[in-house]
């Protein structure tokens, strides 16, 4: 037993106290017909060889490539302080703060997270309970349904594909309708189609979901989307990227009722998909529709400032089948990472991260255009954009042989769209170097030749 403290003598003493000879007596309530006879698994592995096995597996992943892959998950510099704080056992080996008197560390951290994200999004109520950007988007779509008592949600085709697919799965349970809004040839949500979809009086719309930047990296006319949605008494959900909010207008300012997104860029490593942090922020009017844990500031019996989970009666453990969601998690450790990240960088550091990424992306655009891969769209972008290359899948594969991970072939997400068979979605961030950009451009010239 690698982590168990019991000696044989301890076990004997416990058995004696129970008046039994063998622990088998404690399992006799399992009917013989379904009692298992152990596990067909390898023998225990000592830490030394297990560590070597894990190191060998990790070494087989290729993380040394010049990577221009984003598509919802972004490589950023994570200040060393973030992991030092995250490694404190007092944080990562505690559980949900059910006993506030001995959980003020976790509770204040979540409150601080709520405060910082409220500043970034321009919205009042922030929940740290969501798994990732996709599930936060699905929960936001369900919020619009509950809040409006309508059953139809419109999602732009230029929202992250996997967020749309996840929302579709969440809607699989019944009578709700999820409709995709088309995009214009320039990659933006088609506002004329939105207006038309909102105009059907027989099928009123609960919510409109649009990304900023959208799945092609482009900046959408969010204020106009908000105006159209609100004119039809629908709620507006903005899918945002948090680092971009250092330089882009906050969702609360352009009229979003709910902002959701992937919190990974805020100090969380890519880890092949998670764990991540679903961002979810909403207006005060929607506070009782917000799924998951919320932490509030209050006082203790002596009048000292203290924090506690609040508005608990919305949650599954109290409201059961009438709960706003089945969510039980609060993604506290990931929220801690985001909070330490934001506190360490501050407003100017975060702006520098966003602006430097934008500058590198401009350099990348210039270099790729010169190498024969011009931009696919003309609308403004921040740090991610699509380029046109013939047979993008093949080019992508060949660039990999040159040590370049050339973003995402967009046909993987839009197999039905022939125009996107010639599109690669590429991004740059503050960790992208001029040398990597040069390597990409040089390799591209070689494979296009």
């Amino acid at each position: 037993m690698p982590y168990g403290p019991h000696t044989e003598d301890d076990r004997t003493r416990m058995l004696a106290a129970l008046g039994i000879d063998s622990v088998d007596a404690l399992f006799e309530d399992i009917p013989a017909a379904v009692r298992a006879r152990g596990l067909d698994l390898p023998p225990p592995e000592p830490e030394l060889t297990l560590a070597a096995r894990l190191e060998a597996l990790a070494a087989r992943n290729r993380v040394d490539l010049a990577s221009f892959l984003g598509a919802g998950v972004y490589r950023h510099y994570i200040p060393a302080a973030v992991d030092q704080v995250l490694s404190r056992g007092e944080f990562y080996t505690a559980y949900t703060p059910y006993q506030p008197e001995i959980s003020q560390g976790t509770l204040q951290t979540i409150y601080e997270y709520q405060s910082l994200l409220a500043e970034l999004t321009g919205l009042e109520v922030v929940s740290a309970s969501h798994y990732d950007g996709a599930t936060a988007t699905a929960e936001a779509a369900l919020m619009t349904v509950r809040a409006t008592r309508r059953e139809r949600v419109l999602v732009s085709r230029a929202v992250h594909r996997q967020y749309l697919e996840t929302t579709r799965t969440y809607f699989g349970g019944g009578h709700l309708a999820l409709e995709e809004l088309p995009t214009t040839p320039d990659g933006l949500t088609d506002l004329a189609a939105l207006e038309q979809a909102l105009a059907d009086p027989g099928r009123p719309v609960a919510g409109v979901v649009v990304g900023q930047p959208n799945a092609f990296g482009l900046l959408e006319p969010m204020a106009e989307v908000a105006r159209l949605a609100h004119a039809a008494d629908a709620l507006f959900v903005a899918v945002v990227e948090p680092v971009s909010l250092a330089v882009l207008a906050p969702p609360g300012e352009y009229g979003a009722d709910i902002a959701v997104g992937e919190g990974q860029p805020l100090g969380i490593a890519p880890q092949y998909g998670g764990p991540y942090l679903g961002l979810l922020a909403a207006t005060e009017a929607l506070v009782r529709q917000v799924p998951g844990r919320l932490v509030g500031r209050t006082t203790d019996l002596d009048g000292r400032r203290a924090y506690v989970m609040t508005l608990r009666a919305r949650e599954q453990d109290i409201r059961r089948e009438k709960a706003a969601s089945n969510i039980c998690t609060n993604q506290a450790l990931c929220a801690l990472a985001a909070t330490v990240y934001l506190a360490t960088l501050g407003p100017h550091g975060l702006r520098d991260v966003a602006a430097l990424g934008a500058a590198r992306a401009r350099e990348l655009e210039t270099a790729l255009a010169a190498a024969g891969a011009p931009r696919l769209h003309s609308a403004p972008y921040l740090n991610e954009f699509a380029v046109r290359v013939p047979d993008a899948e093949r080019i992508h594969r060949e660039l990999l042989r040159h040590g370049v991970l050339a973003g995402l072939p967009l046909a993987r997400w839009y197999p039905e769209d022939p125009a996107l068979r010639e599109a690669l979605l590429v991004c740059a961030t503050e960790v992208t170097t001029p040398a990597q950009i040069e390597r990409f451009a040089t390799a591209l010239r070689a494979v296009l030749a």
Partner: protein
Amino acid sequence: MDVPDGLRYTDDHEWLRLEGEEGIVGITAYAADQLGDVVFVELPAVGANLQERQAFGVIESVKAVSDLYAPLAGEVVAVNEALASKPELVNDDPYGEGWMLRLRLADGGGAGSLKDAAAYRALIENG
């Protein structure tokens, strides 16, 4: 536990005070005590038509939540707006300032099968 005479009661711990063809509805002191500190009361819109025993709202305390049921059928003619900002009125004064709805009763003022104070007292004493 205070169970005023002259009111009518449901098995779900609502009370009803008849005033002509209208009835005022709230929850009993016993229910408020069982819930503990009330933090939120969700009430229907004025004009809503309720059936007898139809759920008309939700009451939340710090650690519990309960549906609210109409004692009799009727149209909601007023709701206690004060509860939005002061839900504690339900604890402090359940039969007075903690009232919830004023209904125009559908059958013109009959008390139907509602319990009187003595019967309700017996209900809560027998658990």
